[in-house]
């Protein structure tokens, strides 16, 4: 079998893909600030992405908080600092686990959904039909998903953080015997402005990544139903990896700015 891999072709292909992705992002952002804006589609997507993701986000946040409290208490016991469990749960949930886990859960559910829905439309020429009927598919399909994902992921993360702290609190009070007042007081006191900014900035970026990556792979789908499957998988993999990488970059930047 002939080996036909060409590094230059591979590099060109990747650069072209990145260029297409950034163009899509730019046009989607531009569509959100110029008329016509499809508000109906934005609300529809908010319902689908936000309300539809509630169960997984609530359950993930709650049980992550529970397990954090259990693990933290086991380690802190060696130093006689079990009362610090609330601080650890609160900081971990707010700064890292809340945003990242919510992002990953929503990515698994919605980036795949967007890629498969738009990909199916692409391979059945519905995207071309939309353009032929005088409608810009980026304005109609991509921009509402970006707006809805960014807005809803922010509130889903807030909810996930709250569920995480509540879960940690329940475990601490009913399983570890920590005083409830002590737990919740420490979770509140430990947080400073920089922590909240860090935790609330991340979902904005993650929401943008989930929606644009899902839509990009959907819009670039080729190869029939097999291609739709491939796009769906790629959308989840790429958005998940980008969420982790962006999490590191934002953490580094906010630590640089706020000192923690």
């Amino acid at each position, binding site marked *: 079998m002939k080996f036909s891999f060409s590094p230059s072709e591979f590099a060109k292909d990747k650069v072209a893909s990145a260029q297409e992705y950034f163009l899509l992002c730019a046009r989607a952002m531009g569509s959100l600030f110029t008329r016509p804006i499809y508000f109906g589609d934005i609300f529809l997507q908010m319902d689908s992405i936000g309300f539809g993701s509630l169960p997984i986000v609530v359950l993930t946040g709650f049980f992550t908080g529970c397990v954090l409290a259990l693990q933290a208490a086991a380690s802190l016991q060696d130093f006689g600092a079990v009362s610090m469990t609330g601080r650890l749960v609160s900081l971990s949930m707010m700064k890292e686990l809340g945003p990242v886990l919510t992002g990953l859960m929503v990515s698994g559910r919605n980036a795949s959904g967007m890629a498969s829905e738009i990909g199916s439309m692409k391979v*059945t*020429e519905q995207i*071309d*039909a939309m*353009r*032929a*009927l*005088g409608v810009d598919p980026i304005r109609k399909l991509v921009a509402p998903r970006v707006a809805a994902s960014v807005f809803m992921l922010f509130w889903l993360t807030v909810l996930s953080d709250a569920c995480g702290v509540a879960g940690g609190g329940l475990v601490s009070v009913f399983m570890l015997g920590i005083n409830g007042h002590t737990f919740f007081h420490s979770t509140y006191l430990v947080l400073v402005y920089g922590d909240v900014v860090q935790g609330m900035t991340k979902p904005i970026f993650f929401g943008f990544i989930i929606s644009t990556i899902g839509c990009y792979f959907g819009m670039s789908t080729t190869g029939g139903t097999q291609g739709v499957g491939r796009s769906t998988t790629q959308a989840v993999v790429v958005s998940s990896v980008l969420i982790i990488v962006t999490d590191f970059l934002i953490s580094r930047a906010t630590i640089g700015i706020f000192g923690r």
Partner: protein
Amino acid sequence: MAADDQTAEQTSQAPASTDPVLVLKDVCIRFEKNVVLDNVSFTVAPGETRVLLGPAGGGKSVLLKLINGLMVADSGSIKVFGEEVTTMTQKQLFVMRRRVGMVFQESALFDSMDVEDNVAYRLHEEGVPAEESHKLVEEALDFVEMGQAISKFPPELSGGMRRRVSIARAIITKPDLILYDSPTGGLDPITSTTIVQLVVKQRDVSHTTALMITHRLQDAFVLATHRFDRESNSMKPIPDNGIDENTKFLILNEGKIVFDGTTLELTHSEDPWIQSYLS
């Protein structure tokens, strides 16, 4: 009858200009190393129906997408209504497409919308009031004899019904140019004849300029040898073995135009490849 009202209105709106509706000059496009269209040039006059024939994979669908600005040519010039498409911005393309109706190979109806919303898609985008839009949808569906399917969803329709709805969607705004991408592809002969009859009806009733791709030679010749009879509301052969003067042919093979002319010129062609293709 609603369809007849539309007929009268469309006839009165037939383009009066004699300038070509479509002018292609030296159009080339390649995908990676494969040349798909190689210096394609032709002109379509107002009111003309141009039948685009050729073997599968010859670049016919690509040509239609280039004309509608859905793809961009590597080189050459494409003028639609006298405007250069290849240099248009996205915004200009959307304005141009309002005058062009397109029927896709597999219908390309929106699965999540019912027939009414599919046909009225462009009207909704243009902000036409719901009552007026509903009336226009009924007229367009009556024209393609699909009025009974107004509240159905595309998956509930047969292949032929989907094509008819797709035609209704393309003609609802009374476009000046209609692009048919294999409207009879994959259909049984009886359903194909129904679709060809709709193309003939649109041609003879509204005199809309059209470019139609087909793989079926018999469909192409039915188009050239039949006319639409308004009294019987059906397609009939042109008397005395006549042919429709406004129906012309274009044959594309391996990205190149191998024939461009009238029905008589096609049937009398001495080119061995064309003779073999026609036989």
